[in-house]
């Protein structure tokens, strides 16, 4: 019996030791209250209503070598069509930190989506709840999507954004990506800290596409009862014919 108890104790200790210390790589931490070690809802995306604070507020002395590829057709002409779905792929291109720490190599991103009033805008879809943390308004629109920090070694993420209905105007995407270095503690590390990581931050504004209208050039001044289309063309041809006859008559007189 004692042997079993000892074995369970050892197993328990091993499991607790292997459990990574969840710090700020887990997005939920940003939503926790300051007393709980959180940021009280500040996600450090660099957005205007976060005073422009980015990941660099805590991840100090980042080398600034991280490159990120953010692929979406939305950035083809930096405009969105209301109601259209856009697929986003976010990929770290040159991860350099934490590669020697398979259990604590937590990379992360946070994306803030806001209109000019700093309100949530559009909807994020295709983002698994266990992989992403999301936050939005009561209308179901998304303001924040961030990694949950469940899987070490992640370097790319996919999800979709449904643009809002027309009339919302400009939308700004504020992005922060962290290449974590697992606290620089080597292969056995289960920790992470804000020191020695690399960062990438960016802010992109896209405009609402203006609706495409069929171009129509009125042949005659518009008004009730005025002829339109083929009728107007026939009327114009008739006028031209009459004018031509008039010219000929004038010519005969001469």
């Amino acid at each position, binding site marked *: 019996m004692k042997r079993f108890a000892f074995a369970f104790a050892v197993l328990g200790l091993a499991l607790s030791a292997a459990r990574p210390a969840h710090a700020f790589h887990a997005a939920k931490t940003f939503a926790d209250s*300051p*007393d709980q*070690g959180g940021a009280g809802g500040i996600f450090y995306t660099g957005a205007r209503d976060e005073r*422009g*604070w980015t990941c660099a507020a*805590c991840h100090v002395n980042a080398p600034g070598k991280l490159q990120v590829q953010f692929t979406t057709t939305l950035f083809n002409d930096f405009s969105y069509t209301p109601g259209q779905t856009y697929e986003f792929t976010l990929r770290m291109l040159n991860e350099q930190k934490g590669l020697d720490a398979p259990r604590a190599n937590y990379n992360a991103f946070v994306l803030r989506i806001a209109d000019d009033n700093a309100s949530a805008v559009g909807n994020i879809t295709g983002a698994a709840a266990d992989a992403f943390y999301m936050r939005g308004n009561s209308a179901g629109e998304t303001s924040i999507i961030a990694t949950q920090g469940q899987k070490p070694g992640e370097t790319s993420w996919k999800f979709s954004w449904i643009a809002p209905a027309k009339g919302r105007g400009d939308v700004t995407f504020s992005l922060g990506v962290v290449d974590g270095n697992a606290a620089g503690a080597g292969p056995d590390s289960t920790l992470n800290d804000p020191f020695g990581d690399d960062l990438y931050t960016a802010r992109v504004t896209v405009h609402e596409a203006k609706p495409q209208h069929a171009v129509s050039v009125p042949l005659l001044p518009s008004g009730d009862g005025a002829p339109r289309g083929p009728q107007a063309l026939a009327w114009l041809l008739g006028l031209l014919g009459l004018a031509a006859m008039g010219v000929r008559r004038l010519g005969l007189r001469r």
Partner: protein
Amino acid sequence: MTRARATSLLLMAACTLWGCTQKLSGAASSSFDAGGPTDLAGAPAALDERYFICNVQPVLTQSCAMFRCHGDGTRYLRIFARNRLRYGGTEAERNTVIRPDELRMNYLAASAMVHPRKPDESFLLRKPLDQKSGGYFHRGATIFGMGNVFLDREDPQYKTLEAWVMGATWQDDPACQLRFAAADGGTDGAP
């Protein structure tokens, strides 16, 4: 030594002595006249430490204690906070509950930023307040380029700091009263 050289040396020594005396007396009188932070005559009672723990510490944690800012241990105003700068301990302990000794140091550091006779002009209020709203220059406002911590005096966090600086106590705050009701038999509990 020639006579001229001796005279010039004497003159230099006299000037230096006179200058130093002037500087010292000037500093003393200026401090007295302006009612500077070192002049405690007429200073109000000590700032309420329990109100600080309940209300001010969370503001400092959220808006001031980032490592780039006052979570830097080398700063004059340094703030210890959970999951941020800690006084000792290991990395694994960074996200443990903040300790009473850390709260005490924060309380003293923040109190030192309060003008004893002109609390409204305290650095604790004016430095994080945007200059457009009457704040002082704050390097923190320039780093990220989108204004200071508090854009105006209506910011709820600014109002919390202002209330403390103006003399609010834990008895004014029912939540704080509840929190410390149990602690009165023991120590000032950390959040």
